[in-house]
């Protein structure tokens, strides 16, 4: 059998650049080698694309200005629409001008978390170039990147979510007015008071998320968000907070299937970026070929005992409903907040490209699936979804025939 070439793209211009490298390499390591060959594509923080088998070695990172002899700078060929296979192009200067080499592949796996990868931009580019890819389509990826819009959609479908207030970044030269913020808080959430939680609307992960205990902290938190994003979302801080996460994928019968439920363990008030992704690795420790495993090494309880049947049912049915409603695909992780004293559970957000593709949640799912099975599932689904997309014209359409005389 001819092995399909699976281009896994990771890194990227995102605050979650480093974690994305881990997710991408983990996916490559878990490909079914009887069916697929992996092709790593790394986007450095400046946006340059690189390929080369050296990328599979974790000891290569960080790549210093891409100046590794084993890497090749590449572009995506957007004109390969009518070719048999998508391809990358690499240009090199030769004695008699420029030489262009092509590197073919069959499908692309976006493994970039957050901006410019998980948010629909890459998906749009791939749709445009008719390149098969895995995971959510353009709409699902774009909608879920906007935390506020996702919550509005959920609210409209009668899913329990926290109240919120959206604040736009003030135009340059204008300062945040405390009184104005206080007034807006009162209007949007009349039953709440400090503390609040402040988050960027459009970033994944926990980057830029902080807790505001009073107005001073609120202004500081908003300023921190506005360094990263154009819009902030403020929600009441949930007392006795515990979080529940669940992964969802399309089952063989076409129905959304849910994974095991995890409860991240944490000591701090809030799981910040460091706590979430650097768990298990010491700063300054030697770079091994197997460093912290990112989301995998985070302390967590799988299928926690404290969860009631009603909570579990809410989490599973809500997760499946959101997956269907937004026509999601791949292995997405849906996060919930819970007040462990009152027992109330709220839908929080969707990660369409979660860390490690949340494979560890599938191992203990009601219908367990190994990581190798998961990568195969995502690739098969990606081919199917990309093939099913209509709306493009073929050769028969001619083109601009209205201008024909007669």
């Amino acid at each position, binding site marked *: 059998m001819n092995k399909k070439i699976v281009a896994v793209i990771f890194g990227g211009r995102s605050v979650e650049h480093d974690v994305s490298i881990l997710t991408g390499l983990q996916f490559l390591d*878990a490909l079914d*080698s009887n069916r697929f060959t992996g092709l790593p594509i790394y986007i450095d923080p400046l946006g340059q694309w690189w390929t080369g088998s050296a990328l599979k070695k974790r000891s290569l990172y960080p790549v210093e200005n891409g100046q590794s002899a084993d890497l090749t700078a590449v572009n995506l060929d957007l004109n390969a629409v009518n070719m048999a296979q998508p391809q990358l192009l690499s240009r090199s200067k030769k004695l008699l001008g420029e030489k262009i080499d092509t590197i073919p592949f069959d499908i692309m796996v976006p493994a970039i978390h957050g901006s410019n990868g998980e948010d629909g931009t890459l998906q749009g580019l791939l749709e445009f170039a008719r390149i098969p890819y895995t995971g959510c389509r353009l709409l699902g990826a774009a909608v879920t990147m906007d935390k506020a819009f996702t919550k509005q959609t959920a609210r409209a479908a009668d899913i329990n979510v926290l109240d919120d207030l959206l604040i736009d970044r003030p135009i340059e030269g204008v300062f945040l007015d405390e009184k104005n913020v206080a007034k807006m808080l009162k209007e949007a959430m009349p039953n709440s008071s400090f503390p609040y939680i402040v988050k960027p609307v459009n970033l994944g992960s926990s980057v830029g998320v902080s807790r505001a205990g009073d107005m001073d902290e609120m202004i500081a938190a908003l300023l921190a968000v506005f360094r990263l994003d154009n819009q902030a979302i403020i929600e009441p801080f949930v007392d006795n907070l515990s979080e529940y996460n669940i992964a969802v994928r399309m089952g063989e019968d076409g129905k959304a299937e849910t994974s095991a439920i995890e409860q991240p363990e944490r000591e701090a008030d809030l799981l910040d970026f460091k706590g979430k992704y650097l768990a298990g690795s010491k700063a300054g420790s030697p770079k091994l070929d197997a460093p912290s495993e990112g989301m995998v090494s985070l302390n967590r309880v799988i299928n926690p005992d404290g969860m009631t049947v009603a909570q579990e049912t809410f989490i599973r049915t809500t997760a499946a409903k959101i997956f269907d409603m937004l026509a999601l695909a791949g292995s997405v992780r849906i996060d919930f907040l819970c007040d462990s004293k009152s027992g109330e559970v709220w839908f929080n957000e969707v990660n369409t490209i979660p860390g490690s593709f949340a494979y560890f949640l599938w191992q203990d799912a009601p219908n367990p699936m190994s*990581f*190798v099975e998961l990568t195969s599932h995502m690739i098969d689904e990606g081919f199917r979804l990309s093939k099913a997309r209509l709306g493009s014209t073929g050769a028969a359409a001619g083109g601009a025939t209205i201008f024909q005389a007669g």
Partner: protein
Amino acid sequence: MHRSDIGDPAGQPVFIWLHGWGQDHHALVPLAKLLKRFGRHVLFDLPGFGQTPMLHKGAGTADYADALAKHLKRQNLTLKGPVILIGHSFGCRVSVQMAARHPALVRAVIMIGGAGLKRDRSQMWNLRASSLIILGRLARLSDKILRTSFRQAYTHRFGSADYRNAGDMRDTFVSVVTENLIAEAAATNCPTLLLYGSEDSETPPEIGQKYAALIRNSQYVELEGFGHLDILSRGAHQLEAQIKPFLKEVL
């Protein structure tokens, strides 16, 4: 022997996990977790490693196998039938000895980067190795007669990291690395899965292919892109994908 259990304590079959040289049971935990639903998993610290005291000085892999067999019986781990041995590197030497010396206790063997057979070396390599042996003996002789300390310098310069760090286990180390388990492998009858990383420089695929030729009932699989140690961490999912169908065949 110190041990750590994973999976259903009443489950069947029983998997006995045997780690590599210089490691302890922790090295095998990620993979054992992936296979936990297949039965009961007992991960040992082998004698002289982790929290298990060493056997006598200079004990070889046959001694390890005999001690393990005795221990399994004493702990009632073979009560419901023979066990599945799953080893890495040095642990595979013990597995092969177990299968040859105590076949009634062993249902199947899974070897990951298994050691135990001599590699084909170039004449140049052999020449260098024998000169080094002579040099080492001369150093020791000189130390004895002339009270020099050449031997220490020799070890520092030419001894492998495992040899240098072996401490009280050095005699065992020497006896282990010089043995060649051809006869034991040929005597192995149980189903055996041989898994080797294509980039493994400690126990290269060549050793796995030799085992495959010697063990009648064996399957050999080479895993692209993995080395001797990272096959256990980032390679765990590929190992799982090979081991599951093997278990379905065997169980």
